[in-house]
């Protein structure tokens, strides 16, 4: 095994286990060896975070493990992001997200932000208690592929509809995919308010988002590389 291959494997392992200092050191070593930042991102870090998501969905991983893994990865992203930007490579997709007006719950939304960034999305987090006009402005400014609304209360869930109507009024509804989620939200409710998709947790939300931009951007380099990474890791898993 070449050192490059070793580094990829170690990055995968250390990210999975949330070892931030090791991930940072390995990223620096990889760059010193002139490894491609995209290679580091798509062949080690993203597959690792995908594995974290998979384990979380299965119930084998718990919230703190997801958080430290993502934190470890973010340490690497801080180094890689400017380098990737220099090459002109585009993010996998753009995502605007926020907790709706009247609602200050943010644990679930923050997990989504972490997982989405981990998956290579450029995420614009509008925080909590976000009024419809702020979502509209952000969609206008950032032109995201997806806008995500989070609500934790039955009282604030109707804001999904208000947000969607505000997008319609601004003539933006057709330009962006609307995803919704939060503890009391159901698939049925998502349909009822006219959202395009619903996800029960952060990991699923991320998988659906990736699937969506994969479909949309077709030949985009990022999406393709991501698909390859996903296929590769699935293959490895099947082999056991």
């Amino acid at each position, binding site marked *: 095994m070449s050192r490059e291959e070793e580094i990829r494997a170690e990055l995968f392992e250390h990210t999975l286990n949330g070892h931030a200092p090791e991930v940072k050191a390995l990223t620096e070593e990889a760059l010193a060896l002139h490894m491609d930042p995209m290679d580091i991102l798509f062949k080690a870090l993203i597959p690792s975070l995908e594995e974290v998501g998979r384990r979380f969905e299965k119930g084998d991983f718990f919230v*703190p493990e997801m958080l430290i893994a993502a934190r470890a990865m973010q340490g690497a992203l801080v180094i890689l992001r400017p380098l990737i930007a220099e090459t002109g490579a585009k993010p996998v997709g753009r995502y605007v997200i926020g907790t709706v007006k009247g609602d200050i719950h943010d644990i679930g939304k923050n997990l989504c932000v972490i997982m989405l960034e981990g998956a290579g999305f450029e995420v614009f987090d509008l925080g909590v208690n976000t009024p419809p006009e702020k979502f509209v402005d952000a969609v206008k400014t950032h032109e995201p592929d997806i806008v995500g609304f989070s609500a934790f209360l039955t009282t604030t869930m109707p804001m999904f509809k208000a947000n969607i109507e505000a997008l319609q009024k601004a003539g933006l509804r057709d330009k962006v995919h609307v995803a919704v989620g939060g503890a009391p939200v159901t698939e049925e409710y998502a349909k009822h308010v006219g959202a395009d998709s619903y996800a029960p947790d952060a990991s699923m939300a991320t998988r659906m988002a990736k699937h969506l931009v994969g479909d949309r951007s077709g030949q985009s380099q990022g999406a393709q590389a991501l698909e390859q990474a996903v296929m590769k890791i699935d293959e490895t898993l099947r082999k056991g």
Partner: protein
Amino acid sequence: MHTVLSSRSREVVVSIDRPFVIIGERINPTGRKVLAAEMKEGRMDRVRADAIAQVGAGAHMLDINAGVPMADEPALLVAAIKAVCEVTDAPVCIDSSVVEALEAGLSAYQGKALVNSVTAEEERMERILPLVKKHGAAVIGMANDETGISMVPEERLALARRIIERAADYGIPQHDVIIDPIAMTVAADPQAGQITLATMRLIRDELGNNTTCGASNVSFGLPDRPTVNAAFLPVAMYAGLTCAITNPLIPEVRRGVLASDLLLGHDEYAMKWIKAHRAEQAEMSAKAGPTP
């Protein structure tokens, strides 16, 4: 400071010098698909069964939430309250973020209910506190405002103080405001538990009000939640928590509360502890069947 809650025929007193009050959390459709579907159709059998089971397991009060998406929450909440009152005399905690539902629930309830909840947001206080006053109820005041939840205990204390002052403006006595210092999961922030406990101590020492919290929140996202929940309650009780919305059907939780009452001097001659032990033993031998 005593907060007295009542049903038609039973009174419960929440106070630092009294045994801990368990408010059963189970009657809540959030995350319970079957219960949500049944409540939406107006079927309250499971609500009744949950009420009976929780009171049997040691709940002194019952939280009732009818937050089913796309349903008539005020009507469902009234139906659920009526169903609960048919089968138990435990006072209720009326739980909704919909003001109209709180109003309907309060109107339908006979007794002194606990309203769950108001925050320090001006708009919420303006709408909810007059209802609490009108119905002679007590209210849970959550120590957050429109800007979110502070991670500084002193700031949560300041919000608690604001709610108590505003309640007084509406003629609600201080003892009828139970403060929720806000319990958040330690899975997302390792300091969350410590901040909640520090806030409890501050409220006890600076204000003297009773405190409550959604005690099961602390373990969200973690494995073996019963053990974490059961460990949280005793330390919280020591920090001044006088009642909690929690699940008495979890044996660890129930036993942890009883043992803490005993250790904190709220169980004379350990009579409640011994009685609970005998009841569990009797239940076990009943399950095992007759001895040959």
